[in-house]
């Protein structure tokens, strides 16, 4: 009697392609951001009154803004700001949110209730509310945006991880390994974490994408990076005053924002899909 072996490896499919494209695009954009640390075509803190609102040219590939700053240089710096702020915020969310969710799952129902209730309060105050409070105390800065988005992320990540953990409860192989004498952290490490990893990766990428959008929103309101620094939200804010005359100035930062978030969301969706296929 022959039994057909289970298919080894995965057949080529569109979402794998999307996941790969997303990873490549993310790395390329990240590279642009890192290049801006050592080199930009023009310094971003230098105003050039002779070169105000120029159309794209050989000298200024993406043109200049109303103050004569090179749009390409500003965008490169802005991309870096987006990644740094969203990255630190996502790290805060993951490093505090995941242990909280795991601890709550181990301590039982009351701890879970407290976790869900606390997360609800933070989600309701939202990154905007936290940013307003921080700005009131310390003045606007990129650091504020990091902490505001990070605190908000803790709530979202904890909630999401707790929901993901719940899908593992009641699995037969967990009961089996418990019968085999495995317990506590060893059980979590050997049998829950491997399945949880892709889900957590998806959560991390989704928080990164959301963080980039939130940073742009806070930057646009003037609650994040301040002028000598550059951020895509600030660029949108500056561009809006001359939007009807110079639409190009809104297209560049907005388009960059779209590309970053699109790449990150593709990775997030791909990872989540991978996890749900494996389950």
């Amino acid at each position, binding site marked *: 009697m022959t039994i057909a072996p289970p298919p080894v490896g995965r057949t080529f499919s569109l979402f794998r392609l999307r996941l790969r494209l997303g990873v490549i695009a993310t790395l390329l954009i990240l590279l642009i951001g890192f290049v801006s640390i050592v080199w930009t075509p023009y310094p971003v803190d230098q105003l050039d009154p002779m070169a105000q609102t120029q159309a794209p040219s050989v000298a200024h590939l993406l043109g200049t803004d109303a103050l004569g700053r090179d749009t390409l240089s500003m965008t490169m710096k802005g991309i870096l700001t987006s990644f740094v702020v969203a990255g630190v915020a996502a790290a805060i969310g993951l490093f505090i949110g995941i242990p909280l969710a795991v601890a709550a799952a181990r301590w039982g129902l009351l701890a879970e209730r407290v976790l869900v*209730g606390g997360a*609800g*309060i933070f*989600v*309701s*105050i*939202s*990154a*905007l*509310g936290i940013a*307003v*409070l921080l*700005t*009131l*105390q310390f003045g606007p800065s990129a650091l504020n945006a990091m902490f505001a988005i990070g605190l908000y992320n803790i709530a*979202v990540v904890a909630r999401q991880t707790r929901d993901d953990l719940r899908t593992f409860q009641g699995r037969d192989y967990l009961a089996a390994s418990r019968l085999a004498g495995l317990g506590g952290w060893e059980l979590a490490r050997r049998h829950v974490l491997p399945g949880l990893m892709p889900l957590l990766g998806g959560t991390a990428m989704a928080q990164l*994408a*959301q963080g980039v*959008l939130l940073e*742009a*929103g806070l930057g*646009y*309101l*003037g609650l994040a990076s301040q002028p000598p620094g550059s951020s895509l*939200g600030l660029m*949108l804010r500056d*561009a*809006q005053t001359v*939007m*009807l005359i110079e*639409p190009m100035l*809104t297209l560049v*930062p*907005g388009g960059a*924002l*779209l590309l970053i*978030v*699109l790449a990150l*969301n*593709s990775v997030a*969706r791909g990872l989540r899909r991978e996890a749900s296929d494996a389950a």
Partner: protein
Amino acid sequence: MPALEDAIAAVENTSEATAETVAPAPAAETTQPEPAPAAVPVQAAATLAAAKAPRRRVPPLLAYSGWRLLELVATLAVATGLFAVLLPAAVSPDFGMLADRLAVTLPMIALCLVVAGFVGLPLGFAAGGWSGPVDLVVRGVGVMLVSVSPIWLGMLLILLFAATLGWLQPGGFVPWASNPMGALSSLVLPALALGLPLSGWLALSLRDSVRKALADPWLEAAQTMGQSRGVAVRSFVPRHALAATTRDLLVPLALLVPAGLVVENVFYLPGLGRLLLTALAERDHATLQAALVALVGLVAVCRLLGQVLRAAVDPRVPEGA
């Protein structure tokens, strides 16, 4: 689900002659069970029915909504306390300005929910039902919509509908009292800028949920009971898909209000967002406190809306599963 009950009834009718005695008066059977030998299957069916629908004084959905409302009040109380501690000078919140501002923000959020529903639901069901090009296009558009910044989308909408086509004004607000239609039309573009990203979330999630529901063994079970596939799909898929989708929408719904306050500024709307920012700039702690409480309240209401919607679609939620 009436279709399922019809199917079960049809099966019972063909297999058991006694089923006819169950159908007309099940309540009478539960109150006075008679141990006649012929009535054993009847009695079993009656106990089964009684076990299925235990009597409750409060409907589970109402109880669930009550608990969530209590949670909302608790959230507001904690947030108010937090703000009172964190905002320097001890002042009581000044709610005087709030009514005017909410008259802008609330209709904008409501309109945005309408936009999201009208765009996202058809797109999601279409992509879930038809694979191939429709699915591909909806997924592409959906991912673009969830990735676009509402601020930038707002600017693009202004450039298209106000600057190029001249259909709507690029920003500003006409008070409701002087010109209701004008007020509504100045909220259309902001609602689109907010609602289209939300409709992207809705469409993507619904597409996946519809796919999952279509692959569910329940459909085959219903067909083996003699239902046509069309009837089975129509009675089963939308509800199951929506049950899974309403869960995915809780986070985007919570982000709606903060995003709305930002988008207000793109369109120069005198809403809650403007109030918050001017109060922050002027260090007007009383107004700031009130605006923050309103922000928390609005987000909490949006979350409540999502939770109750979810519980209404998915009966497992209020049952505490």
